[in-house]
């Protein structure tokens, strides 16, 4: 039998005690919105991926940024395609922090994105794509709807 204090500890493992961050930083939880196998499984079992690195100089992920996530014990790369945080005028703000998983070449792991994607991502992804580098525009091709 556990002591009452230990019981409290066990119970508290299931609740989050960290204050809500209004931006994507390391250890932020995200929602996978493509239909990749690993993403679907992670969301179904209720263990959404955590951001473990943001590939920019400031360490804060904004719309269209590439991040590294820990998902089902693996490390995968992803692109942020919709954020909860306040956005500029005419850029949509979403109710969840959405992520699309990609591989090192920029090819999405899934074949379809179930939620709308902001139009501004077209330009952002094109800017990030360089010849001989990763091609991120494939992500735009699998989107089902734009807002």
């Amino acid at each position: 039998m556990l002591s009452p204090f230990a019981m409290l500890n066990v119970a508290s493992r299931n609740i989050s005690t960290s204050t809500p961050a209004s931006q994507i930083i390391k250890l932020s939880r995200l929602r996978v919105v493509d239909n990749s196998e690993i993403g679907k499984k992670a969301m179904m079992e209720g263990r959404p991926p955590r951001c473990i690195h943001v590939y920019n100089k400031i360490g804060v992920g904004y719309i269209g940024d590439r991040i590294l996530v820990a998902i089902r014990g693996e490390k995968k790369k992803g692109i942020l395609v919709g954020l909860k945080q306040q956005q500029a005028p005419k850029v949509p703000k979403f109710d969840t922090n959405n992520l699309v998983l990609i591989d090192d070449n920029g090819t999405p792991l899934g074949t379809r994105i179930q939620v709308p994607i902001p139009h501004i991502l077209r330009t952002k992804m094109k800017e990030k794509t360089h010849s001989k580098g990763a091609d991120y525009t494939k992500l735009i091709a699998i989107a089902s709807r734009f807002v």
Partner: protein
Amino acid sequence: MITQDSVQESQNNKKAKQNIEQRKAIPNRYRFIYPEFLPDPDPKYRNLLREKLERMDMLARRTHVAIPEFYVGSVLAVTYSEPHAPGKVNKFVGICIERKGSGLRATCVLRNMVNNQGIEVIYELYDPAIQKIECLRLERRLDSHLRYLRDAPAEYSTFPFDMEPEYLLEGASVPVNEIKVQLNPRPWLEKWERQELKGITELQLPERRIRKAKAAATPWEKYDLMKKYRETIPEEDQNEIFNEVHTKLHEVEITRHRQKHKRAFVRPQKTG
């Protein structure tokens, strides 16, 4: 001397009469239809010359793009140039959950559910990229903002993108939608119980939270006349502002009214 005085007096009288007449001509509803013409009451941000210039710019913009009458709770459709879209034009439909800002910085926030994903977009009303603003359903709600729709089930903020505009009868007052929204269980994004909201059903809260809300409440503030005075533009100043813009606004209204009647005619389509 006496004659001069009397002349001046009569002129003053005339002016006062004119003012009264003009005030009668300005409908009382203007401060609700055009709230962005009233400046920010905070004295830190007052600048009479800038406000005047902004009003001129706003009128110039309104002659090009019709900004209809709408309130928090109305359903709007905004068509705007989107340089990132393939057709360079985009349209968004949603319920107005917030209306903020004054002058050229006036904004509204539209909210909608697309593919079961909540989306909010801020639009600046006087943005030159905006091509058209349509009010699809003109109505008001019980609260000054509807941010609580973020914590409400999806059906309260779902509107189809191909929604048909609903027309009100000529001269009818704006209907108030007295719907009570049932919020999702906690956690919430804001402490709704502290905002004295009328458009939500009774909240189920633990004792502690009720106690804290009671401790944080400031029920005496509604008797604070100076606070109210500082937070609003006095009626005299409002009249002065609307006197300045009234004729131009009225003109714009009339031309829009004419166009609306023109639009009502639908050319029969060839079939077969």
